[in-house]
């Protein structure tokens, strides 16, 4: 069975050109920090990649800090930004729908480093509530070290009002996680005006293990990783010339295709959405009332658990994900959907399809053919929950007893 892969937001196909270039540079001997000819040659590859990446994303080469991926870039912006401003600005504000790379970094600052952390509300479409932001800034702008609002949400695909956030922020440093947005919508670092911007290679056809933080030269960032002082002294670690070349090439190809892919994927997604809504009762397409990434479709399917739907899809050769996937632990109800006002039951019924460069009409046809039956079975398999089940002795869980808590999440996937 040829599989239909609709989980491109988790990771996508490495481009052939990128794999070729990456393999070529993996075999190149030389540490870019060495002064000899081998080092110089590696450094040339690294710096050319930096210049190319900067040119394609509206940044200055100095503003490119290579990292090992999106998570590291987000942590550097949030944790590094907080520590650099420590003493004068003890607060961090984030949207309530940030990826865990920002969300958990901020809450760690709160629990372990004494930061005052505020989550800013979103509306029912999952878009930042600008009134909440304004109210926050009115009282706390001068205390805030970092204000983080992602460019596009990884679960719903909803685009966030980053431009308005920058305008409202005044002098507060704004970080945006553009990991999902890159390659799918136009992206220009200088034009948008944020202080820092995180991106990841493997979402755009580069290998896992390389990403970057675009950071204005006036961005105050304390290092998170300490060592040899590479990358403006902000990000230590042996420079990865092969990874940088792969990232720059993948971004160049993605940016070149961005407009046509946005149109193509948007049409496919809209067809998938219309077909699903017509065929399956009570399904909702989330954030459909907001501007969305073209390849994202997040469904909530009342009466199902996402894992039963995903199981059925997998068996039918369709790879999708729940809103927030896990590899070893238990799928947690999506914090994004909870922030959008969903109850836990609904938030656990979320299934995400994300289209990408290799997605075809046939993939959409496959999903439309199998999903109704899969949902029917998942609904039949739905377990009675929350008070519906009783113990042998007929006693429900005592009222007032807290629901079991704790997190099984181990390894998050975007």
């Amino acid at each position: 069975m040829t599989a239909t892969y609709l989980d491109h937001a988790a990771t996508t196909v490495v481009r052939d050109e990128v794999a070729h270039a990456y393999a070529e540079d993996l075999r190149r001997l030389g540490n870019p920090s060495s002064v000899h000819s081998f080092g110089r040659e590696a450094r040339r590859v690294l710096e050319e990649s930096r210049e190319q990446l900067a040119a394609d994303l509206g940044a200055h080469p100095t503003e490119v800090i290579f990292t090992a991926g999106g998570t590291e870039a987000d942590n550097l912006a949030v944790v590094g930004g907080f520590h650099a401003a420590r003493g004068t600005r003890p607060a961090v504000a984030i949207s309530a729908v940030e990826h865990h790379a920002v969300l958990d970094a901020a809450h760690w600052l709160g629990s372990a480093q004494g930061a005052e952390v505020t989550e800013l509300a979103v509306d029912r479409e999952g878009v930042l509530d600008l009134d909440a932001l304004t109210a926050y800034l009115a009282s706390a702008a001068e205390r805030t070290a970092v204000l983080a609002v992602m460019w596009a949400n990884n679960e719903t695909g909803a685009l966030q009002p980053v431009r308005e956030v920058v305008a409202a922020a005044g002098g507060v440093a704004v970080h945006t996680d553009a990991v999902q947005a890159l390659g799918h919508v136009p992206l220009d670092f200088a034009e948008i005006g944020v202080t820092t911007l995180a991106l990841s290679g493997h979402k755009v056809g580069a290998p896992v293990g390389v990403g970057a933080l675009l950071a204005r030269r006036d961005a105050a960032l304390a290092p998170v990783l300490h060592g040899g002082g590479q990358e403006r002294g902000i990000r230590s670690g042996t420079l990865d010339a092969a990874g940088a070349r792969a990232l720059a090439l993948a971004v160049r190809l993605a940016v070149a295709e961005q407009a046509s892919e946005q149109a193509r994927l948007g049409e496919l997604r809209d067809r998938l959405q219309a077909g699903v809504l017509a065929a399956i009762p009570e399904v909702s397409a989330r954030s459909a009332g907001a501007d969305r990434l073209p390849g994202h479709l997040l469904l909530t399917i009342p009466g199902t658990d996402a894992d039963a739907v995903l199981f059925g899809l997998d068996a039918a050769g369709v790879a999708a994900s729940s809103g927030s996937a896990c590899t070893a632990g238990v799928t947690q109800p999506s914090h994004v959907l909870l922030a959008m006002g969903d109850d836990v039951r609904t938030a656990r019924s979320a299934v995400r399809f994300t289209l990408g460069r290799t997605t075809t009409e046939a993939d959409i046809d496959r999903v439309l053919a199998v999903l109704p039956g899969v949902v029917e079975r998942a609904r039949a398999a739905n377990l009675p929950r929350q008070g519906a089940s009783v113990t042998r002795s007929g006693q429900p869980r005592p009222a007032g007893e807290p629901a079991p808590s704790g997190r099984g999440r181990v390894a998050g996937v975007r």
Partner: protein
Amino acid sequence: MKVLAALSGGVDSAVAAARAVDAGHEVVGVHMALSRSRAQHRNGSRGCCSIEDASDARRAADVLGIPYYVWDLSEEFEDTVVADFLSEYEAGRTPNPCVRCNEHIKFAALLDRGLALGFDAVATGHYARIVDGEHGRELHRAVDSAKDQSYVLAVMGRERLERSLFPLGDVESKDVVRAEAAARGLSVSAKPDSYDICFVADGDTRGFLAARLGERPGEIVDSSGAVVGTHQGAYGFTVGQRRGLGITTPASDGAPRYVVATDPAANRVVVGPAALLSVDEITGGDVVWLAEPGPFQDVTVQVRAHGEPVAATVEVDGGTLVARLATPLRGIAAGQSIVVYRGTRVLGQASITSAARAGAVGAVR
């Protein structure tokens, strides 16, 4: 058949799944996440709930080349097994959570969900045998009597037995399973056996109960009503228990004293000499039959997970049974299962509600 293999992360369930694959079934592995606050790593002998166990289960599925999923049944587990565990202790009984897990989770929530998703049966690593008898399938003790788990499976009932596979029922010993796992390249082959209650993280049942039910200080009395000590919660005591009583006043005859009853209403623990623990008439409720209902002559009954079978006769009255033992047993705790066997075959089971010395005045609850 399409078979759902429950993979705990241990060696038994991995080999059971492998045998189901060998038998030609279409097997899918499922690890049940039963605890919301799961430990990262295994801690001593407690298995089934840690994230490391989930990872071991995944690796076993990889080696067997079968699909693998984690199903979150923690809400059902909390609402049935854990809630029952707490309410039973609170009511002065001694529950067996493994029985309740088999009743509510493995052969209920998991099996029902599997059937709805198109599976035909659930395979587990339990040690018990299913035999095709004249009148349908029968549950029998495992070949390896030391590992036999028919006692905790009897509660599933006949319908669910039809949908169950126990591929390890005929192995001679655990060593065989370990050797087979090693030969198949399963990395869990040398993993220690799990004992104790999986959701009591550190094995401290009394501490778990105290945390969930709160401390309730009360008196320990002897059969004359004289106060001989204090306790922090009557729910922490089990009939037949001798250790950990903390009695300060020695018995007049110097003989060891045991818990002979707990009285949750009065929050009192009653202690007395061993003689008071001896019973030969056991009454059970919530009867589940795996054969035509009795009465039965010439059967054996087993009253605890690793207890010896005892010869008995069994009378039946609707959902209640009364077993009369040929020889008395000591320390029968209400809440445990009584399982009725003929030879190796399980006939049925009930939850013990009371036990008494026939004709004796001092009935022990």
